[in-house]
């Protein structure tokens, strides 16, 4: 695996759209070629070389490419978006769309990410060591296809409207999250180790929600059915099991209605 290191040399004046900053675009290119890749500031096109010093070469394929990004990326969007393979480590905060539409590989952000990150993620591993904003792993504005695969882990807190329209994959928030979690969810798994505010699993058709902390206000469409012992992401404990959202349509399998599940740690 070849490592290529990008270091921010100029903070963009307005937000920079780094749609080229991913292993797939870098694959097979040397530092000089990568410096010429486009990035947009509004309607003006500039190049990655205008904002980063670039050292090393990318591997022949995305799988063989590791990208390390240093410096302040808090005004950069789309880092690691659409990546299908390879590895990326960003030693900074990032702006919107980080890791969105990714379908493979590993993306590690050592800082925090803004809203709309991990949108419609299909596969791979996306880890945020800081906090995440709103709409994490959700569907793009207007779209009805949210996160469908992969593992999205946030070590801090997450905002509101996370995992909207989720259909698969796993999202783990080690801190707390705000309102509207897993709205319209139709599969997949969300684990929240801290507290959640309200409107958890509204209009949820299928899928699993796990909450370790408190739920400020429970949705009326959930009904407690039993208590179970579970091992959730390394934590063994007793959970109250709820089914829901009872106000939503639910599919039938072998004559039985399939409900979404909500597990609240006791």
């Amino acid at each position, binding site marked *: 695996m070849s490592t290529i290191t990008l270091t921010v040399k100029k903070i963009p004046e307005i937000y920079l759209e780094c749609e080229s900053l991913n292993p797939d675009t870098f694959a097979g290119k040397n530092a000089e070629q990568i410096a010429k890749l486009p990035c*947009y500031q509004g*309607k*003006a*096109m500039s190049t990655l070389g205008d904002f980063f010093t670039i050292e090393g070469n990318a591997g022949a394929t995305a799988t063989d490419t590791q990208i390390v990004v240093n410096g302040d990326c808090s005004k950069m969007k789309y880092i690691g978006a659409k990546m299908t393979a390879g590895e990326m480590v960003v030693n900074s905060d990032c702006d919107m769309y980080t890791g969105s539409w990714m379908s493979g590989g590993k993306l590690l952000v050592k800082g925090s990410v803004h809203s709309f990150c991990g949108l419609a993620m299909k596969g791979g591993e996306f880890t945020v060591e800081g906090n995440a904003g709103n709409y994490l792993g959700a*569907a*793009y*504005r*207007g*779209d*009805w296809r949210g996160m469908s695969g992969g593992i999205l882990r946030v070590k801090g807190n997450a905002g509101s409207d996370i995992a909207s329209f989720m259909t698969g994959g796993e999202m783990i928030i080690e801190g707390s999250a705000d309102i509207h979690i897993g709205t319209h969810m139709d599969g997949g798994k969300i684990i929240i180790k801290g507290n959640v505010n309200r409107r958890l699993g509204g209009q949820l058709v299928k899928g699993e929600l796990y909450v370790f902390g408190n739920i400020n206000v429970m949705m009326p469409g959930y009904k407690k059915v039993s208590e179970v012992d579970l091992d959730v992401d390394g934590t063994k404990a007793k959970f109250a099991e709820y089914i829901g959202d009872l106000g939503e349509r639910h599919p039938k399998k072998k004559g039985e209605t399939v409900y979404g599940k909500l597990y609240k740690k006791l």
Partner: protein
Amino acid sequence: MSEYIIKNGHVFDPVQGIKGDKKDIAVKDGKIVDKVGSSAKVIDAKGKTIMAGALDIHAHVAGPKVNAGRWYRPEDKHFDSHKVPGITRIEGGKSIPTVFKTGYAYARMGFTFAMEAAMPPLYARHVHEEIHDTPIIDEGALPVFGNNWFVMEYLKNQEIENSAAYVAWILRQTKGYGIKVVNPGGTEAWAWGLNCLSIHDNVPYFDITPAEIITGLMKTNEYLGLPHSMHIHQNNLGNPGNYTVTLDTLRLAEGVKANNNFGRDQIMHSTHLQFHSYKGTNWGDFESGAKEVMDYVNKQKNITVDTGNVTLDETTTMTADGPFEHHLHGLNHLKWFNVDVELETAAGVVPYIYDPNIRVCATQWAIGLELALYAKDPMRCFITTDHPNAGPFTRYPRVYAWLMSKKYRDERLNTFKHADKVISATNLSGMDREISLYELAQMTRAGPAKALGLSKDYGGLKVGMNADIAIYNIDPDNFPSAGAEIEKAFGNVAYLFKDGKICVENGKVVDMGNKHTFWVDAKVKENKQVMHDIREKFLKYYSVNENNYPVPESYAPHQHIINVDAA
């Protein structure tokens, strides 16, 4: 204005019957001329195909429902919001492109005219605002009449003269081009929670049937002598078994004679026929009725049709057929937009994914191609995708490639997930016909121009006609064998002349041209009854004042007015 001489190209022009012969074409002052001076700029078209600019007879490209699609589907334009170098503005959107992209994309494919297929009269200003902002191509818009209260009341009593006076008034108020009919009676019936699924269903309250509305509007059209015929989206769209309703509707054309000074022969244009050519009783035994429908169309000479080819893309359906969109939303559960337009019409919008892995979608794809391949007279069968309903218009090159190469369409057909079922539900696999370049020029140029009553100046390359010329990188002596190459050639013209000006060169837009808005000004005798009815309905029902209804001149500053005298 500059003079040009296009040399050595292979010309395909149904107007003059030229089938690929090498012929020089001279252009001066926006017209095709006999000869030009020695200083004329020479365009070398050696090894290239030359046709007139194409005309799209039916596309939803401007107006409130198109814009509803744009604002409620931000995801449709998400990844294409960047500015590219050159004179063009940002081009966003796939199934519902921005007005700018609409103009550029049509021009790049060799089109010089598009007809907005459904203009709600009340919102005509919005339609014209968008048309005005669409660069390069000429456009017109068809106001919808099939569920209009005035029309239903006049036609119920067979008052063709009053109906004609009202239509003429609307065309002038809205700067409209002709008579569009969408699910006649059915959209109005839906206000009562009903629909008209056959042409003999009664429209509640108005006590009239779709058959009476259709026949009445055909007669109204010929009474006025409009350049285009009555243009119909039939009842019972998109349902298995609907081909019998389609045949019933088409038969209404028997016995009605065309009356106009524009060289138009048809009295009914039946649009997006693919959606109306289904056999079977449900989605399980759903199959093609293309042969039955086209057998009738082929022998009934006063009908023209367009195909409505499914392109197998994710798209956005939109129509004035309100009940249909509600029905579709019930099938796919995707977001639904709906609006009622007072006394006139309604509209709905629902996203739709024509998934090649779904048997029904693949069968619809095959039916669309069958229709074009069954057509015996390419001057009466035009290729459309009912943009964006069956697919975006930007897929025309691919549709052409499927029609022009049996190999290419068979590759697609045989690799469907349910290929066996699709093959047995359709006749496509047994069809060997490949559409020729000459036939394509009939189906996309001369044919639609004639059906729109524009054949005097458009759709051909005869001396005196408008210099709308598309030059493609296709050598007819060495026709591309790969479908992808055909697609590429039709998607990127070598040159597009619009009104004698080069607007596209090597697939790149280089000039915004001088676009015009076409509309029809029909003069009728003063009709006090109709003017009284209009005044009364505005006072009683409309949410706007009659004086705020017309489209002001400033909304269509570059007009091409076609005058009709029925007085």
